[in-house]
């Protein structure tokens, strides 16, 4: 029930991001969502891509510092308050959000979440029947 996310260590140097993007573009790998956390020296680029296994292997081969992380994808309808309601359940269960970002596809807003307690987070999703998507669902969405 998770989404495979790629996390990439990027130095704050001209061309570092381009290199990563070029590798993906040449291999015809699409970027579905991306977010950068930056510090004064480096950034961590987090991405959901169309073929994470292939992208991971290719980036490694090209000497990019990359790791795979499992994140949650919560689907909301994009109406006012929908994010708040989704997150409320995690807060009640004492789960913290380490980072989040979102993207829209086919009129739905998808919330990418990384929590400090993944097992408990799955429980919350099940218990409150939150709408979620996994990596395999993403492939369907992309072909629409």
């Amino acid at each position, binding site marked *: 029930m998770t989404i495979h*996310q790629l*996390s990439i*260590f*990027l*130095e704050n140097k001209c061309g*570092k991001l381009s290199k990563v993007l070029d590798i993906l573009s040449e291999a015809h790998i699409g970027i579905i969502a991306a977010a950068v*956390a930056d*510090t004064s*020296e*480096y950034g*961590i680029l*987090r991405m959901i891509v169309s073929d994470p296994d292939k992208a991971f292997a290719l980036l*490694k*081969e*090209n*000497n*990019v*510092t*990359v*790791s795979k*992380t499992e994140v949650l994808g919560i689907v909301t309808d994009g109406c006012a308050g929908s994010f708040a309601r989704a997150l409320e359940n995690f807060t009640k269960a004492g789960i913290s959000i380490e980072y989040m970002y979102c993207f829209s596809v086919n009129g739905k807003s998808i919330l990418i979440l*990384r929590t400090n307690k993944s097992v408990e987070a799955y429980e919350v999703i099940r218990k409150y029947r939150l709408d979620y998507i996994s990596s395999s669902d993403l492939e369907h969405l992309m072909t629409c």
Partner: protein
Amino acid sequence: MTYWQEELETMNRADLEKLQLHRLKETLERANHSTFYTKVFQEHAIIPETIRSLDDLKKIPFTTKEDLRNHYPFGLAAVPLQKCVRLHSSSGTTGNPTVILHSAKDIDEWANQVARCLYMVGLRDTDIFQNTSGYGMFTGGLGFQYGAEKLGALTVPAAAGNTKRQIKFIKDFGTTCLHIIPSYATHLAEVMYESGIDPRKDTHLHTICIGAEPHSEEQRLRIEELLGAKAYNCFGMSEMNGPGVAFECKEQNGLHIWEDYVIVEIIDPITLEPVPDGQVGELVLTTINREAMPLLRYRTRDLTHLIPGDCPCGRTHKRIARLKGRSDDMIILKGVNIFPIQIETILMKFKELGSNYLITIENDEMQVEVELSDLFTDDYSQLQRLSKEVTRQLKDELLLTPKVKLVGRGSLPIQEGKAVRVKDLRKFS
């Protein structure tokens, strides 16, 4: 059979010193045929009778790299060039290169020296020895080549670089022993793992000879773990032929320096006086088994100390400790003496860090850039903790606070030759 030359390797000290004195006297006579030493001997009133005991060696002045450069190319030749069969030369990036000449006997003796070292770490004629040193002028190539051939091993003169091909040879030929520069050894192992090869299971490697650049015990352990083989430290320098001057035995506690080939002194590089056994100083060597170009009391610029006591392996030749770096490599920053090896020792403790690093000195500040290893995770706070902890440990060791910068893999130049670890951008005027 434990020894390549049991009688010489285990000779009692009194006999060994007698042999040294005999060979020293011969060396002095030979040296007197070179234009350089003829002049030195005249200026210092040295005649054959000056040397009555090994202690009298102190009456001879030191020879330095500058002397070799100033008498480039053949000023130290003690035999006619007709008797020489090879020369090796340094790169000469700063001024004239240094040239070392070898007679046919010298080449043979050198090969014997290297064979003795390889035999000591367990190599036999059944082994397959792959040499990743550059051939040509760099002595690590031909030096090991002739030594391994003398031993009778099957040699693979792969030469430097081309990592993919090195790995193919190791697998296809069943290489059991590698001679490799330590920084390149970790790189090679990393590439193997990335290509899905586990050197511990998928190769026959059992012995690694590492040398040519200073490295820490941590780096040795990492190489042993990565490659699943024993790693032995070797020391050599082109002025002393090349590889084979000193080598670790299976005890892995100090390098036996072959005293039937050289006389060892350790001096204080400032006062030039001998230091007590066990204290760090500059290694000074006198060749006593070389025809074409003897060197007397040559200042190597390498810092080390003698390890007191007998070695359990039974060899009586003195042991020097792993090199502390070259007296030239020392960085003086804000009045503190720093050796790159100190920094490396700390960095190697962290599994999250790779083996490639670069020290930059600019405006009296030190920056240490180090590549992350494969253990990079998505966790930002962990990265912050890592760089803080590395900074703290470096500060404890160096007594000044460097700026630690984590960089991605492949950001720093790949070290396929002798690693360049320090960039000093300060302007001295």
